[in-house]
């Protein structure tokens, strides 16, 4: 079977997601170990061959055919982003020096995605730097999900597959909410990340009945003074007596989401739910959410949540490991990935 030769490596950032993806692919995670020395440098040990073998293996009738592509799954755990990143880079480089033919980095939550433009004098374009670093380390392909700005793909000279959590989101809406009463609200109409909430309405109207939810749409216009801080909000559109679904690509400190939820409720929405792809939820996010008017906050498991699920009973988690696994399988087999842009693999 072809999937036998998928090598999936993972770092310490999100072992649970890696296990789920591996289980979905029906493979075992490659044997690697990464840890920190006491001087806090990261050490990576690879415990099995990633060398691209030729046909010798099959000729001798041994277990697996040679690995064609090495996949390295590494998310970014809030707080240790730099450690996770260095671990990923060292791991990529380890595979490269160990003669892997192709190395694909699976980074569900691309780090530094928000530092993607020179918005001030001498502001670093850190996302571009990360892109360069990944390629320098030896990465041949990137699989990621819901990039903060899809233009980040242009920072790379290697293929970037930007997956969408949207099919999973649509399924969650269908399964958990009264679809006919829903209205999608974009909490941040300005800026480059507009595509995500809009793509829901686009996809709902243009990709066949499977996705057709026929949701109404509203947006919130806001002026942001400083990062992680929100100033004034204006709602455009009608949410009265509707279930408002706030859709965004990431929730960090949740200030925006909570303010947006309050704005929506002030416009007589029946209830408000937030659906967010990357639940970074750093700082006091959990306390902020617990105090908020949001009925539910739905995130995917691209980012490790730790004990946040217990600390916030409004938090719901969508599992996107099937999408990642399917993307890995398709990439490995050279099949089209675009099917996943509109369909979530069923459980």
């Amino acid at each position, binding site marked *: 079977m072809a999937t036998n030769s998928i090598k999936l490596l993972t770092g310490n950032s999100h072992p649970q997601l890696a296990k789920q993806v591996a289980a979905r692919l029906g493979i075992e995670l490659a044997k690697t170990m990464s840890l*920190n020395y006491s001087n*806090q*440098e990261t050490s*990576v040990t690879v415990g099995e*061959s990633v060398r691209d073998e030729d046909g010798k293996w099959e000729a001798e009738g041994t277990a697996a055919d040679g690995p064609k592509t090495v996949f390295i799954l590494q998310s970014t755990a809030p707080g240790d982003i*730099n450690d996770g990143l260095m671990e990923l880079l060292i791991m990529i480089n380890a595979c490269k020096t160990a003669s892997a033919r192709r190395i694909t980095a699976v980074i569900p939550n691309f*780090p530094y995605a*928000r530092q993607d433009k020179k918005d001030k004098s001498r502001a670093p374009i850190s996302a571009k730097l990360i892109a360069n670093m990944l*390629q320098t380390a030896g990465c041949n392909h990137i699989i990621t999900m819901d990039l903060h700005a899809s233009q980040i793909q242009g920072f790379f000279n290697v293929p970037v597959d930007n997956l969408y959590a949207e099919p999973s989101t649509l399924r969650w809406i269908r399964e958990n909410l009264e679809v006919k009463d829903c209205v999608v609200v974009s909490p941040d109409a300005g800026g480059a990340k507009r595509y995500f909430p809009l793509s829901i309405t686009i996809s709902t109207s243009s990709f066949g009945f499977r996705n057709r939810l026929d949701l109404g749409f509203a947006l919130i216009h806001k002026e942001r003074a400083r990062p992680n801080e929100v100033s004034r909000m204006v709602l455009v559109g009608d949410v009265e007596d509707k279930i408002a679904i706030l859709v965004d690509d990431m929730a960090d400190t949740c200030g925006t989401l909570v303010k947006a939820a309050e704005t929506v409720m002030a416009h007589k929405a029946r209830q408000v739910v937030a659906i967010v792809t990357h639940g970074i939820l750093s700082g006091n996010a959990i306390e902020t959410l617990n105090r908020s008017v949001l009925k539910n906050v739905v995130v995917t498991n691209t980012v490790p949540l730790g004990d946040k699920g217990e600390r916030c009973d409004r938090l719901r988690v969508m599992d996107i490991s099937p999408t990642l696994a399917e993307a890995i399988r398709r990439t490995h087999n050279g099949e089209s990935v675009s099917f996943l842009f509109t369909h979530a693999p069923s459980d």
Partner: protein
Amino acid sequence: MVRNIVILGGNSHPQLLKIVSDALAVPPCDRVLGKFSCGESRCEIKDSVRGKDVYIIQSGGGKVNDHFMDLCIMISACKTGSAKRVTVVLPLFPYSRQPDVPYNKAGAPLSKAPTDVNRKDFTFESLPATPSPAQPQSQGLSNGLDGLHKKLGKASLDQQNGTSYTNGIAGPRRSDTVDSLQSMNGRDRGSSQGSVTHSATPSFTTHDYANPGHISNNMFQAKPGYKQWVAQAGTLVADLITCAGADHVITMDLHDPQYQGFFDIPVDNLYGKSILKKYIQNKILDFSNAVVVSPDAGGAKRATAIADDLKINFALIHKERRPTRITDRQNATMMLVGDVAGKVAILVDDLADTSNTITRAAKLLKKEGATHVYALLTHGIFSGDAIDRINASALDKVVVTNSVPQDEHCRRCPKLEVLEVGGIFAEAIRRVHHGESISTLFWD
């Protein structure tokens, strides 16, 4: 006052930044460097760097990965901010010490192939043995934990000697690969590589490579027949610094001189030797009767250079691979070559991390009759329980430079004395800026 220059400092070593900028009479560049609440580094450079010669000072101690990412982001920010040239000043180069070959319990590299029953089955060809039902699932663990220990030893031997693994004599040494260069240079120092901590599990030390029960405890075991290897981050770090946009690197006492070759950009490796030498001349009474001791064979060159310059005697601690006496466990594998009886012994090394090597060397020297034992080190990382170990050791004085911040160490360790390197870096920066020779800095 040096013109057209910007001194930018990271968070790792503010004192050094101050000393350097004072020496050059240039105020440090105004910048914001911190973290967003999600953990991403945040960097804003307030002063203009357009057309300037930028020097970024960041050391490799403390939270290495954070500091390294900060450094790369700062380099990139300066580059996109149209800096004319970006020079990275790394007093202590991060990831300069590579993981070494496995060690036995006493800290010496395993070079003699252990004889064990499975030896026939274990091959060092690149192709692993064909799995068969009769064979144990994991060759590495077939003898229990001790078995893996032995396998690791053989693996390390194989790495060092190319194909031959019968003993430490034969076999062409591969000197053309990065891997072997590092293992050749740094192989005697692994025991001080230090404790290893792991976020999710109890802490490890590198000695645990020789004691695999701690590591492989359900967490890690190599595939059957595959010799595990530890990734070498050296070239990667060099590449990443270059890729971020650095044009020039200034560092000090690189652990492996070959590291310079990993870069495609100029690397100025400064020497701490002159400072250490000055210390010996000025602070050690009757230094001409003292003996300079290298705690391992790898550092012999560094130590002999100082001994030759000062025209004093030299001794070497050789790590004997076979225990000579079973009763003398701790020092069984260390052997002093040279005479220190009744003399002051000066241990010279480039770097101390967990200080295992120097404290054990000190014990040996005292046993051999040294009256005083000094340790002179360029980089004092002192991670883990290094400070406690030094406090409890036979060392009378430990002298380090402030290539990494030493305030906290000084507070906890009365034996510690710190030498200032800020002046050397300031002078090197000035010379690089004006295009003057660096090597004359080290002429006597």
